């Protein structure tokens, strides 16, 4: 069971403070929703937790270990996984190859040099893609998929990696309400093995799946609480009223 803790995180872009002393704790079995207006620093926070950005202040702990100076691949090997706001998939490879890449990490090179794994992995790949309705697109070049499909392919890759901490940056952007509900169900089912942080602009969606919600505004922490508490929070109302 792995907990991800960010303490007093600050990020500076030149003279602009994108993140200012934000703390956050992600526990296994919990889904934390992260909301805030455009440019409030949500992606910056995710990138900092993931190690894609180095914080200027604060630290990140993964399962009790200080990982602030760890490179991304080490965090990934310790169970961290991230879905980026703009899907990062391999557009020149097939859907199956994308998933294979996520499945085969940690396998010894000697095994990777043999092609026999293809047979074994095909069934697993299909099973992993099924929740995202991609299981009959195994041999399609990922770049030829539509936007929503690309997002879901990245989710399938992230799932294949078998994370214990999962960071999702707007996973349902550009999806229909139906697709969104599907992703919501998948996230919920995934969360009993895993600590999840999810960013989304659809507040009803976030409220429906999160156990905890954190609100950011202009790089600063505004409030953290249950969906009901957040809804009633005067500061949160102010943030959203002034922006919407």
């Amino acid at each position, binding site marked *: 069971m792995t907990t991800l803790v960010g303490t007093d995180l600050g990020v500076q872009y030149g003279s602009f403070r994108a993140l200012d002393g934000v703390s956050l704790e992600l526990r296994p079995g919990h889904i934390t929703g992260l909301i805030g207006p455009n440019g409030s620093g949500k992606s910056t926070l995710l990138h900092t937790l993931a190690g894609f950005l180095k914080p200027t202040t604060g630290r990140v702990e993964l399962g009790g270990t200080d990982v602030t100076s760890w490179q991304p691949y080490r965090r990934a090997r310790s169970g*961290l996984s991230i879905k980026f706001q703009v899907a990062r998939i391999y557009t020149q490879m097939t859907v199956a190859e994308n998933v294979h890449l996520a499945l085969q990490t*940690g396998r010894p090179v000697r095994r990777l040099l043999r092609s026999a794994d293809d047979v074994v992995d095909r069934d697993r790949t299909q099973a992993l893609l099924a929740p995202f309705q991609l299981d009959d697109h195994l041999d399609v070049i990922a770049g030829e998929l539509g*936007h929503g499909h690309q997002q879901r392919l990245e989710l399938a890759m992230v799932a294949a990696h078998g994370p214990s901490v999962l960071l999702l940056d707007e996973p349902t952007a550009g999806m229909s309400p139906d697709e969104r509900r599907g992703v919501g169900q998948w996230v919920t089912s995934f969360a009993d093995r895993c600590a999840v942080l999810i960013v989304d602009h659809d507040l009803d969606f976030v409220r429906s799946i999160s156990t905890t919600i954190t609100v950011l505004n202009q790089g600063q922490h505004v409030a953290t609480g249950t969906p009901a508490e957040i809804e009633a929070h005067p500061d949160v109302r102010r943030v959203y009223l002034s922006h919407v």
Partner: protein
Amino acid sequence: MTTPFSSRLPAALGRWWRPAIVVLGIVVLLRVLDGPGESFWTQVVTRAMILVLFAVSADLVWGYTGVFTLGHAIPFGVGGYTAGLLADRFGWSEVLLLSLAAAVAAAAIGAITGLLLFLGRQPLTAIAVSLTTLALSFVAERIAFGWSFLGAANGLPGLPIPTLFGWRIEPGVPFFIAALVSLFVAYVASSHLVESRVGLVMRAVRDDEVRAAYLGYAVGHIRFAVFVASNALAGLAGALFALHEGFVGPTQIGVVLSTQVLLWLVLGGRGVLLGAVIGVAIVEVAGRGIADEYPRQWPVILGVVLLVFVTALPGGIVDGWRRLRDRGRTGRSSSGGVEVASASTGSGAS
């Protein structure tokens, strides 16, 4: 890919019959071009095969892991000088030992450079990697020029003819066979590598190193390993080249050769091993006639051709040919049911 073992052998034969016919055709052509007792064209093709070996090694680094190295002549030259020194000063003649020593020396140099490029605490940016390798190539050339032990500007001329188990490998048919065998082995091994799951990881590192890292791949380690292996291969090519020419000099380690190998890959196509073969064939064999006929205009012609390729055909000849072939097959390329994004992604690694 998913064939059971029993049917793999015929499949492998099916893959190699076309190259085999091409080689046979070249051999016949060489017998016609070179009269009895002559070996001019045989040597031209031998030289080209050795350069293909070199180009394949560069493609592994640039075409498959996305490292734009401007110093790939370094391992080539280190291999050449290693073989040259051992043959000239220490009297080694066994070609297998000379090649092995050259490959080991080049790999060692590659390991030192690779450590600097890929295994630092903070990984270097792509630009920094290119500039560093460029600077190193320049330094290597200067050292070769200045150091009398390496023959300075004259290099090491008059290298003795190597032997294989006591049998003399003369430039001409014997060296042609030796180069062909080396190239065949290296090419088959490389294509097995790039088509395996390891090759998939290499392309993943090339196409998006951030995604690769978040899937748990140690991008720096992978690039380091491929870089060292590729340097060893380049060292082997450098040794064969030096032994074939009977000469090794500063041009074989310098900036010009470092860029030339990239040029072959731009023309032929990178990220596809056949591109190395085609690039070298065009510039070093077909282009040779033009270069001899119009020595002054040749660099300009080459420059213009290069410009056309970089702008109009960034994937090189192999990619262009594949597109032409695929255009004839459109209509059933995209299967039903998938929404097809309007923007098609261009090919080519940066």
